[in-house]
């Protein structure tokens, strides 16, 4: 069966159950999503913007959804066995797609900060959630439409005007299921004027051998002079497929920093669309992908400069070994109104084996004369001269290679503003290259 149809059928057959397990606001958008999907198909490999990744193929297995909201017990202590089971005061858990409030989180949230189940928020504060739910991520993206059709819950984060969260908020997405499953979740982030949030998302699997598809849409709105950072770190399993679309809408004077890090995974497609809607915004989007075995990592970004005097910067680096496949597609579009735009994009890749593959597609569309823009993509091998230099000092070949690959990621790691997270990432990357990274480690509590 056509992969899309199996999910449409699933929806049609379970419409009432799905609605009953969610909130009216989320249910209200499903018919529109269905309409889009009925006249549409999922992107296949080779389609414009999907040169190496087939969304259709990713969804081909007939994954089940937990539409009836059967409680799958999540053993949080088991998840964090590698850590002091003392939860960070600002750590939230999402089990599959269900937000699990922890007492310590709720107790420690400062005034003006809301972190709760999206379905609950949509019921309790429909006006506030309706401002941005389904308004930032467009339904004409079939992945967004599919998520909108099936999503029942997720996370709602609201930072009131002028509230600045001094610690990062960490959301751990835990997958737990003994049978192949798909989770469709939505994260809605509403950062008020002059407000400040640093958000760390990590994917974690408690059942590493079970096939799993994480379908995720993030909608984020950053108010005037607001500041938002989203670090999305994946250290999942070879059996995990991940489809994630992040949409960010920025008002005047706001700042956004996005980080897409893939350390371990199966097949991943991350899309980022950043709308610099107001003047004098700044956006930074940074990515790091480390692939070996048959990992597949595809990052795609669209930066829309819609108003004047904004700046964006992008840096994506990949190290691909064995049979790993990578793709980076980056589009910067400068609209006619966006004078004095500064937009830069860099993508550097190292192919560490003869059979690893990288597909890079940098694009610039400039509809304006008064801009400073650049893009550059390089794909090559480890520096042989550096390798020999290190070996001549006694550093063994494999160790020298690892050190060079790690060094290649330093520039991306250095863009992380949270010191504890920077140290954590450095450590994780080191372990990843040394081959000792476990799939549970990225979501340890940030000290």
């Amino acid at each position: 069966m056509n992969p899309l149809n199996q999910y449409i059928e699933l929806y049609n057959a379970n419409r009432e159950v799905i609605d009953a397990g969610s909130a009216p606001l989320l249910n209200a958008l499903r018919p529109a999503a269905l309409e889009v999907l009925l006249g549409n198909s999922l992107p296949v490999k080779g389609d414009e913007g999907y040169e190496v990744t087939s969304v259709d193929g990713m969804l081909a297995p007939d994954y089940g959804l937990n539409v009836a909201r059967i409680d799958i017990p999540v053993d949080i202590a088991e998840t964090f066995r590698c850590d002091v089971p003392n939860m960070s005061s600002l750590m939230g858990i999402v089990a599959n797609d269900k937000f699990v409030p922890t007492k310590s989180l709720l107790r420690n949230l400062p005034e003006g900060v809301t972190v709760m189940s999206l379905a609950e928020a949509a019921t309790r504060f429909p006006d506030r959630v309706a401002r941005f739910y389904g308004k930032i991520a467009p339904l004409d993206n079939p992945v967004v439409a599919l998520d909108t059709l099936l999503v029942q819950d997720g996370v709602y984060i609201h930072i009131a005007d002028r509230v600045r969260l001094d610690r990062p908020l960490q959301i751990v997405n835990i997958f737990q299921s003994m049978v192949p499953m798909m989770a469709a979740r939505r994260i809605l982030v509403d950062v008020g004027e002059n407000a400040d949030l640093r958000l760390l998302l990590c994917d974690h699997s408690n059942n590493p051998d079970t096939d799993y598809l994480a379908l995720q849409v993030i909608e984020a709105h950053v108010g005037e002079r607001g500041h938002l950072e989203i670090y999305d770190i994946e250290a999942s399993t070879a059996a995990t497929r991940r489809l994630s679309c992040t949409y960010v809408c920025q008002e005047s004077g706001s700042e956004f920093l996005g980080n897409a890090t893939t350390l371990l995974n199966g097949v991943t497609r991350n899309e980022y669309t950043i709308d610099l809607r107001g003047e004098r915004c700044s956006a930074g989007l940074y990515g790091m992908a480390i692939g070996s075995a048959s990992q597949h990592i595809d990052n795609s970004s669209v930066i829309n400069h819609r108003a004047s005097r904004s700046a964006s910067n992008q840096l994506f680096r990949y190290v691909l070994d064995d049979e790993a496949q990578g793709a980076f597609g980056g589009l910067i579009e400068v609209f006619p109104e966006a004078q004095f735009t500064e937009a830069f994009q860099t993508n550097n890749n190292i192919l560490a084996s003869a059979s690893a593959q990288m597909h890079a597609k940098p694009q610039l569309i400039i509809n304006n004369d008064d801009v400073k823009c650049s893009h550059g993509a390089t794909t090559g091998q480890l520096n042989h001269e550096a390798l020999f230099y290190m070996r001549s000092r006694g550093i063994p070949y494999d160790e020298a290679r690892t050190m060079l690959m790690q060094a290649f990621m330093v520039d991306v790691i250095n863009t992380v503003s949270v010191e504890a997270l920077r140290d954590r990432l450095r450590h994780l990357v080191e372990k990843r290259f040394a081959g000792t990274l476990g799939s549970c480690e990225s979501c340890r509590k940030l000290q």
Partner: protein
Amino acid sequence: MNYELRIMNCTNLLDVRNLHASIGEKEILKGINLTIRRGEVHAIMGPNGSGKSTLSSVLAGNPAFTVTEGSASLHGIDLLALSPEDRSHEGLFLSFQYPVEIPGVSMVNFMRAAVNAKRKYFNEPPMSATDFLKMMRQKRAVVELDNKLASRSVNEGFSGGEKKRNEIFQMAVLEPQLSILDETDSGLDIDALRIVSQGVNTLKTSENATIVITHYQRLLDYIKPDFVHVLYKGRIVMTGGPELALELEERGYDWIKENS
């Protein structure tokens, strides 16, 4: 025979016999013979393109070159059979003509990896952090290397002189038996030349040896050679004492080209 004994019994530190090497199809070394004993300093001079840097690269094990004939042994061990890292562990050190910049790898991590790899090779435990930092401090003093440089990425943004001093610093840390200084004087001003040479002279003992590869006599005013060899078209065409360097300085290389 155990390792220590083998080293003790071996009078020649380096023995190069009829060494031929090429890059791609092009033969560059065409039969080098060279014997170096402990405590000696040898200078290798010669015009551009004569194969001086190739000789140092081949001895250090640069995979860009292929040895097609001949042999080279370091204190009795077949040097050519060893990987570059094992050659280093066995006591060979090459000071690069163009030290490589390695962005993202800090000098400290670089040196720690090098020191501990050598210790592992000799079945010794890694050096403790305190001992390591103490040693780094001591060795930096040999070439007056600024502490700030030690905390930066390897050679990144170093001036020409700083890069060369960094080479000698690494030499001080690794305590090689045979050091090859490849055009260490190029790009150095008089002060840097003095500091680098002093460093090399400080590290000199009766147990180790040095090969100084240079274009000019200038460096040899600071590092006094026992022997001077002239390399031309891939062969050593003349060997003499320190006076040969002075003669070359005076007469240039043309008379060598005519005579060979």
